[in-house]
Structure formats: C-alpha cells, structure tokens
C-alpha cells in the first residue's frame, strides 16, 4: 500500500473505530438492554455467524436496486433528450418529474405489491421511481450545459442533431449524471429494502422484518449495516467509473 492510499484510508478508518468503540463502551458501561440498542459486537456476531445468508439477502436487494437504477437511468436519458429538444416539451416533462419526486414512493410499495405480485417487480419499480427524478433533472441540466460557442462550432460544419447529441451534449452531461448517480446509490438501496417489507420472502428487507417479529434487534441492525456497506461498494464503483470516464475534468472539480 502506498503512502498516499494509506493517508486516504487511515483517517476514516480511525473515525469509524472510535465511533464503534464508543458505542460498544456505552452499551457495556450502562448495561443497555439488547432490545433498546445492541452492541456493535453483537451486531458483528449476527453477521459473521451467517455469512452465506447475509450474502444471499444482499444480492437479492442489490440486484433489485441495480435493476431499478438502470431502468431509471435509461428512462431519464430518453426523457431528458426529448425534454431538451424543444422548450414546449421541456415545460411538459419537467412538472411531471417534479410531481414524481414528491410522491412518497416508499409508501406506495404496498399498493404496488397488490398490482405487481410478490416477485421482484414492485421492488424494482420502487427503486426506479425513487431514483428517476434526480437522474432526469440532472440529465436535463447536463444536456443543456453546453456552451453556445461549442454548439455553433459544430453547427458551422453542418453537424447533425445526432452528432451534436453524441459528440457534445451527452459527454457534457456525464459529470451531472455521475453526481446524480452518487445520490441515487443510497436511494435505490433504501427503496428496494423498504419495498421488501411487504409481501416478499427474500432480501435484506425481508430479513429485517423477520428479525423484528422475533425481537432480534441485533439482526435488524445487521441488515441496516449490510445495506450501508452495499452503498459504500456502489459509491466506490461510481468513483472508479468517474476516474475512467471523467479523466478530462480538472482535478479540483472531481469529487
């Protein structure tokens, strides 16, 4: 490990260790009941005693979140390209996106289960609906972030609308999409997990509600921790993608 990598990883590692250590001490020192707040060690044991089970549950929820995100991204891109083609369409599309953003999508999950059955469909739909608005709004802003001078240079040689979209507008939108994707990692995972509370027989949300029924708080906390860890994995993946695709951005603009 190089010195630079160590300097990047060490501070957060220390912070988390201190935080969890304080938590553990607090629980032990005051003898806090497991039902109120389980100790980190108890949560860790809950995870390590059943690696296979957690892995399977995480994969189920992760796949739902990823599918939902990909569907939302595809719809957002198409919608953003349409919306930015004429001002009238933009005025038609953006209010719809705003309303979708205001719907408590998670609360909608039970209704979606009735309509879509007990398979992964309602969970994927919740993950898609919850990430759709930020992706669309950022895609619209990104596609419009083209400097007029750049577009005119391309138009001066009669570049087609398609060429301008592919060569100029979509690459310009990439940093905006990356920023939206960072927000959406958490949203998609939360959406998928909460949607699993109703009418599901697998996934982290199912593990969570089953643990709740048996008052196994350490397993409930474990489910939340596994979900958070998946978020970290997702953010890391996006970071790596950004480093590859957005190499051209000045470093100070990179996140």
């Amino acid at each position, binding site marked *: 490990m190089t010195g630079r990598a160590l300097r990047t990883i060490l501070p957060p590692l220390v912070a988390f260790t201190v935080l969890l250590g304080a938590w553990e001490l607090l629980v032990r020192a005051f003898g806090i009941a497991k039902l109120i707040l389980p100790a980190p060690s108890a949560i860790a044991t809950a995870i390590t005693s059943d690696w296979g089970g957690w892995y399977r549950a995480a994969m189920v929820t992760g796949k739902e979140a990823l599918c939902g995100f990909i569907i939302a991204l595809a719809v957002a891109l198409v919608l953003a390209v349409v919306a930015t083609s004429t001002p009238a369409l933009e005025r038609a599309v953006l209010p719809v996106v705003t309303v979708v953003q205001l719907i408590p999508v998670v609360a909608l999950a039970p209704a979606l289960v009735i309509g879509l059955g007990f398979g992964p469909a309602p969970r994927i739909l919740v993950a898609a609906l919850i990430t759709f608005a930020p992706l669309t709004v950022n895609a619209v802003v990104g596609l419009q972030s083209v400097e007029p001078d750049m577009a*005119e240079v391309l138009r001066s*040689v009669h570049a087609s609308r398609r060429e301008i979209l592919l060569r*100029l507008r979509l690459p310009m939108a990439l940093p905006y999409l990356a920023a939206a994707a960072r927000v959406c990692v958490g949203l998609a995972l939360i959406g998928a997990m909460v949607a699993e509370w109703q009418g599901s027989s697998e996934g982290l949300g199912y593990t969570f509600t089953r643990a709740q029924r048996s008052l196994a708080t350490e397993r409930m906390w474990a489910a939340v921790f596994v979900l958070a860890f998946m978020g970290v994995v997702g953010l890391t993946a996006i970071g790596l993608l950004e480093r590859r695709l957005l190499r*051209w951005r000045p470093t100070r603009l990179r996140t």
Partner: protein
Amino acid sequence: MAEGAIVLRGVAKTFRRRSEHTAALTAIDLDIPEGQFVAVIGPSGCGKSTLLRVIAGLLTPDAGTVSIAGLSSLEARRTKWFGLVPQTPALLPWRDVRGNIGLLGELNRHGGRAPGDGHLIPVDVDTLIATVGLHGFESALPHELSGGMQQRVALARAFALGAPVLLMDEPFASLDELTREEMRFLLLSIWEKRPRPAADPSTDGGRARTVLFVTHSLEEAVLLADRVLVLSARPGRIIADLAIDLPRPRVAAQADTDEFVRHTREVRAALRLGAGQ
C-alpha cells in the same frame, strides 16, 4: 471568380422575444471579394456578431439574401465552407489538442467537398500544430493549457478543414495584451501563406482564404485587415467602408507609422459618427 466570396443584399435581422422586438441589422449590402481580409467594427451590441452568424447561416435573416461564392449559407455549411472561431476557444474538454483540431473533419463526413472542388487543401494536423506553436502539446487536454494556447487550438481547428471562408468573432478579446498581439501576427502569418488572388492558381485549388474578423479594437482592425467595415449603433448598418492599404506582410512596427495612425483616425471618426457622438 464571378461571384464574390461573400455577397449580402438587403440583409435585415430582428430578434423577437415575446412582445419585444430588437432590430439588430438593417439594410446590409456587402461584397467581399475572394481572399480579402475584412474587419468589422462597431459599438457594443451593434450586431457585429449577428452579421457573422447570419453569414454562417447560424441565424436566418428576416430579409435579404446571403451568397457564399454562389452558394446559400446552408449549402456552404453543408460543404464545410466555413472555419468558425468564436469568442471563447470552445474546445471539447475531453479531447486532447490533436482531437480538437481534428474534430470538424470527423463530423458531417458526407458533406465536405474534395479539395479540387473549390476547397483549399486540408492542412496536415501535425504541420498545423507546429505552425500554431503547440508542438509537444499534441496530447494535452484543454484544461492543461493556458487561455492563449487554447485559442491557438481554436485557430488551428478553423484552419484544419481548408475552409475558404474564415469567420472570426472577437477571437482574441479575452487574452492579455501581449498574447493578443502574438495571436494577431500568428493569424496573419497563416493567412498570408495562402495564395492571394494574383498568385499561382495551380496551388491550393487556386483559392485564397477570405476572412471576416469581428473586433471592437480599432488598432486590431487596421493592423489585420485590407478593409474595415464600421457598423452603426443598433440597428446595425454599414456606415463606413474603409480600405486599409498598408503593405503586407504586416509587422508590429507599422503601428507607429503615419499611415497607420491616419487609418486609425479615419476609423475612429467613423465609429464616433456611428455611435451618434
């Protein structure tokens, strides 16, 4: 050549935004022969940039006709007749120097004409990079370059296609004084290398490069151009059409000659008149 490189007849352009009408250009008649370097000068907001955009067909005039060597603006754009240099370098940030200079060649592939078909011969990208002084920076990304270097790339991009007409919209306005002066002479040196109308017609398809250069600097206009057009305040009309007969190649020392001073005085007087002072 029967048709001038750029011919405008009765061109007018009004911008309409809701109930607000802004007349930008009115009654523009203009004949620019092939190979001429024409500077356009006028008070801020007088429609200089609009004139350039109407010629390029990026804006449609409300009245009048535009002819580019006998072609419409649209046909001229389709056949890659224009090299546009906007006010900002407008480089694609994800393309390196070579990629930005080659960009326009990759677009609208079926539209361009063969060199013998009226175009100048497209310039070899590596030669061009050396000419504009960017040798060694071929793989640099725009954000790694200074403003002056970015504008060099923009200049090279416009020259790369071998376009017969160069349209430049205050390309050096945002640069510092020394860099600006350097860029002016760089532009002249590339342009003067092209055959003038009197030169051997067997080279470069026999065409000379016509330049329309929008600027708000009197000295720049007189230093660069064969001819200075002075536009009035909005709506823009051509109120003076002055020939600048300073010998070429132009050099920095000419700015101190009586001839130069006389020309700038002439242009300044026309500008004052146009601004209504």
